[in-house]
Structures are given as structure tokens and as C-alpha cells.
């Protein structure tokens, strides 16, 4: 028996969401009195070391250039690893690949899945009980997974990453994918991550603006604020619909759901569908000229006033703070 954790390397680094999963899987292993095994494709020595520091006892290191982000191939690989390791719990991140692979594996293994867990599971007899967000963040449900093998995908940003001194044993693992047809041919890859900023679902700091900014030509001051704090930019749905900002910045019920440490909402009214995607944020700051804007009811800090005068002042004040800190 063991806990198996699917991890990924992206842009030269172990993905943040993957390190969170290793921490999480190691805790579950402790809880069940077993060990944690991570599986990773094409990781170098430094990356393997980092996965070890996050708490994996063992790492299955796969060298394969065909797997990429093909969900059929990843599923087959993890399925073989789970069988080889006798894994009873398999952990994924609830991110783009995790959303494609975890359900497929769940079906193949007839293993119950909780998608988007937000807390550590507790053991109840042969079942594991896990909390996840439901109703777009308006409630939490306690799920019981009753099957023998269990799959859990962890909502990114649910726990801070802890790296220790642990070193994992590394074993080469070669998945036999000869019998698995990939069925998907990649024709073109398009990158949307603008510059160096962290992709929205992983971002810890987010500066977001809505229709109150009046037009796309005014986004410079939103970007200035985001730049001084190193935040990723987001927007409300009408802003994306009017093509003021790219679609991947749209947060909310029908856009990306995020839970950063800091969410600054500028000129956004706080409609329930917008809140559904951001109300898991740890700290929310709202800047709105209307003191009755519903968003203030969901905010930790609020400023009533004109964004066009407040934003430049706020950016300057943060610059000053950063300068003093250095």
C-alpha cells in the first residue's frame, strides 16, 4: 500500500500545485500509516530533490517525450504506477491536467473521486472523508469515498508549501504505453501567460478590474498596481465579453475560480456570479465609487472612491513600502 502523487514539471520548475500535492499526499500517508510515492515525467536532479523535500519517500522518475499533456497517456502511466505500488490513494492537483486525468483514472480503476478537495481527509472505517467546495464556493460538502482505491484532487492554494530536509529514493519507472493509442494529435500550442506573471489559477496575488474602469485604454494603472506587488491581472465577465481584456482573465462562476492570498477588486460591483469565483480568496480589497456596491459585503478592506484617483496613489504608496523594506 502507498499513496501515489502525480506531479509535473513546467518551465524548468516543479509546479507549485504539484508541491502542494506532495505535502498533502505525505500527510495522508502518515494518516494511513504508509508511505508517499510521487511520479514525475522528465525531471532533473534538482527537481527530484525538491519533490523529496516536499515529503515524498520515493519518486518514480519517468523519462518519456511522448507523454506531454496527453490525458490518455498520463492516465495509463499513473494506472500502471498505482498497480506497481499497490496504491490505495492517488492524489492529483485540481488544475488543467488534473481535471482531465483524475476522472479518467477514477473510471478505469472504479475508484471514487473527490475533485477539488480543500482539506485533509479523515479516516472513517474503510472510507475516507474529504471536504470540497460546492455551489461555486458558497458551501462546503463533506464527501465520503467508499471504494477500495480512492482518488483525490487538491484545489490549488489550499495549503502553504512546506519544504523540509527529506530526501526521497529515486527509482526509474518506464510505463509501457505501446498498447495505448493517444488518439489526440497536437497541431499548435498557444501561450497566453503574459510575460513573466504567474498564471491566474496559481497566483497568490491578483489585481482585478471591472466595468468601472470605463475602457481598455485605462488598464495601464491596473497593470501598474499589479506590477508593483507582483500580482497577476484578472477581470469581470463583461470586461472580457467586450474584449477589453483577454478571455483567460475572466474570473467568476463562468470563468476561472481562484483563491489567492490577496484579491484587489477595482470597479467591480460584486455580482453573485463574480463572487462565486473569488470568495475563497484569503484577503479581499474592494475599491468602488459606490458605497452601496454589494462587493463591500464580501470584502476585508474597502475604499469608497474614484479608482482613477486612488489607483495611482495606491501604487505609489506600495512602491514606498517596498523601497523602505529594502
Amino acid at each position, binding site marked *: 500500500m502507498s499513496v501515489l502523487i502525480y506531479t509535473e514539471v*513546467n518551465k524548468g520548475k516543479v*509546479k507549485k500545485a504539484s508541491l502542494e500535492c506532495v505535502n498533502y499526499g505525505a500527510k495522508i500517508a502518515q494518516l494511513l500509516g504508509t508511505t508517499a510515492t510521487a511520479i514525475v515525467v522528465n525531471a532533473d536532479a534538482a527537481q527530484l530533490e525538491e519533490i523529496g523535500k516536499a515529503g515524498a519517500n520515493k519518486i518514480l522518475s519517468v523519462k518519456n517525450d511522448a507523454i506531454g*499533456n496527453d*490525458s*490518455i497517456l498520463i492516465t495509463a502511466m499513473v494506472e500502471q504506477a498505482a498497480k506497481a505500488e499497490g496504491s490505495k490513494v492517488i492524489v492529483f492537483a485540481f*488544475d*488543467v*491536467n488534473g*481535471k*482531465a*486525468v483524475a*476522472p*479518467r483514472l477514477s*473510471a478505469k480503476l*472504479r475508484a471514487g*473521486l473527490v*475533485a*477539488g478537495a480543500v482539506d485533509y481527509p479523515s479516516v472513517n472505517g474503510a472510507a475516507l472523508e474529504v471536504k*470540497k467546495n*460546492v*455551489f*461555486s*464556493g*458558497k*458551501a462546503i*460538502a*463533506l464527501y465520503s*469515498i467508499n471504494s477500495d482505491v480512492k482518488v483525490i484532487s487538491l484545489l490549488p492554494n489550499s495549503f502553504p508549501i512546506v519544504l523540509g530536509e527529506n530526501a526521497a529514493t529515486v527509482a526509474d519507472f518506464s510505463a509501457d504505453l505501446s498498447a495505448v493509442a493517444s*488518439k489526440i*494529435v*497536437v*497541431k*499548435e*500550442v*498557444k*501561450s*497566453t*501567460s503574459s510575460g513573466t506573471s504567474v*498564471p491566474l489559477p496559481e497566483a497568490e*496575488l491578483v489585481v482585478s478590474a471591472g466595468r468601472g474602469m470605463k475602457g481598455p485604454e485605462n488598464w495601464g494603472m491596473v497593470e501598474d498596481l499589479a506590477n508593483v*506587488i507582483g500580482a497577476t491581472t484578472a477581470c469581470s465577465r463583461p470586461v472580457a465579453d467586450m474584449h477589453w481584456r483577454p*478571455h*483567460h482573465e*475572466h474570473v467568476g*462562476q*463562468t470563468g476561472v475560480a481562484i483563491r489567492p492570498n490577496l484579491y484587489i477588486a477595482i470597479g467591480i460591483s460584486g455580482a*453573485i*456570479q463574480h463572487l462565486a469565483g473569488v470568495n475563497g480568496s484569503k*484577503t479581499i*480589497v474592494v475599491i468602488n465609487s459606490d458605497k452601496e456596491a454589494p462587493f*463591500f*459585503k*464580501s470584502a*476585508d*478592506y*474597502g*475604499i469608497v472612491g474614484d479608482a482613477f484617483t486612488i489607483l495611482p*496613489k495606491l501604487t505609489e*504608496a506600495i512602491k*514606498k513600502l517596498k523601497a523602505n523594506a529594502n
Partner: protein
Amino acid sequence: MKILVAISNVPDTTAKISFANGDSEFNSAGVTYIINPYDEWYALVRALELKEAGKASQVTLIHVGLTDSEATIRKGLAIGADDAVRINSEGPDAFFVADQIANYAKANAYELVLVGKETINYNGSSVGGMIGGLTDWAYVSLATKMDVDAGKVTLEHDIDGGSQVVEASLPLVVSCAKGMAEQRIPNMRGIMAARTKPITVVEASAGDKLTNVKSFILAKGRTDCKFIDENNVDELVQLLHTEAKVI
């Protein structure tokens, strides 16, 4: 090519969320139900567009649920689906739902199964991938564009930090996200026509439920917002630095 569109019946996006029976179930009293937005706006409308372009022969709705979701199914027919199937069973275990849909799709020669990106009540993004696993068909998740030509499906879908264009062959399962189509409001003719379109009710096959919800808790709302004067942004910066410790 026949298209099967899986639709879920969910509380309206503005519904007040509360629970009943010792917080063990959703309290649906006074709640309006709608078709899950992703299923309606993107999956269903794109399926209809493919049919209108002569690339699909039939668009069938499938729903796993009880009689109380008939109004939702009728709305889907009013928007333009040809017919509908209701598998008579309670959800919400994603595996059970996927198993029912996978069996129906295979037994009735559907080659393209469309689901929504996620349901707005259970937010699992799970049913589509499970249908893919159960049928062993390919699954393309979070697709924002889709076209079909001579049995080949070209899609654009989200990946980490961007998107990619892929080609897949039928049979195929696709989860549909924003970008794929525009919402359609049913017109009077559609609503009239929907009254006579068939909704076939099929009893659920025996299937496993691998998970169950034991209880619900309402998310904690924020209690009170600290207001800061617009002429004193330094105070906000200090609070974010020393109290919230986020910058």
C-alpha cells in the same frame, strides 16, 4: 453523426443556498432550477450549430435525474435539441452519472458526447473525463472551439498557461467552455415545438455509487469590511503589510 449533450439541472446562479435535514441535503424550497450554464450556452448551442451546418444528424439531450428536472429538459428542447432521454435516477455521484451516460452513448451509436466544463452546484469537472475512461474514447477537456470535418474533430482547448489546437477522431467526449458558442434564447416557435418533442425515460442500470455527500456547511461570509478613507491609502498599505501580511 449523432451528438449526445449531457445536461445537468442546477439551482439558478443567484439562488440562496441553504440545507435541510440536519444539513445533509440541499434545500430546494423556493429555488428555481436551470440548465447548467456551460451545458446550455456552449455544449448544446455548438451541437445545434454543427447540425445546422449539416455536420450532425441529430442532437439528443441526456439527463440523469428525477421527474422534477423535466422543465429543464423542455427548455433544452425549446432551444433546439431534437429529442431527450432522462435516465430515471438520483445523482449526484459523478461515477454513477458517467456510467449511465457512457452506457447509453455506446448502446445507441452516439459518436460525440458533449458535457459542460463543470456543474455550478457540484463543481466536479469530473463526469466528462469519467465517460471517456468508461468508454475508452478520447476526452478533450475545457474546449473553447470545436469543428467537425469528414469524421475529424478539430478543437482548441485550455492547457497550462495557454491553449492548444488538437485533432481527434470520433468517437469522442468533449467538455465545453466559454468561447465555443453564444447563448441562445428560445423563441416562441421553439417553445411550442418543444411541447411535442419526445422525452424518453429510461430506468437506470445498476451501477456503483463510489462517493456520497454526508453533510454540507455554508461557507463563512466575511463579517465586516474595514473602510479606509480614500485620501489615506497609506493606511491600507500598512494594514495589508502588517495585519493581513499579504504584501
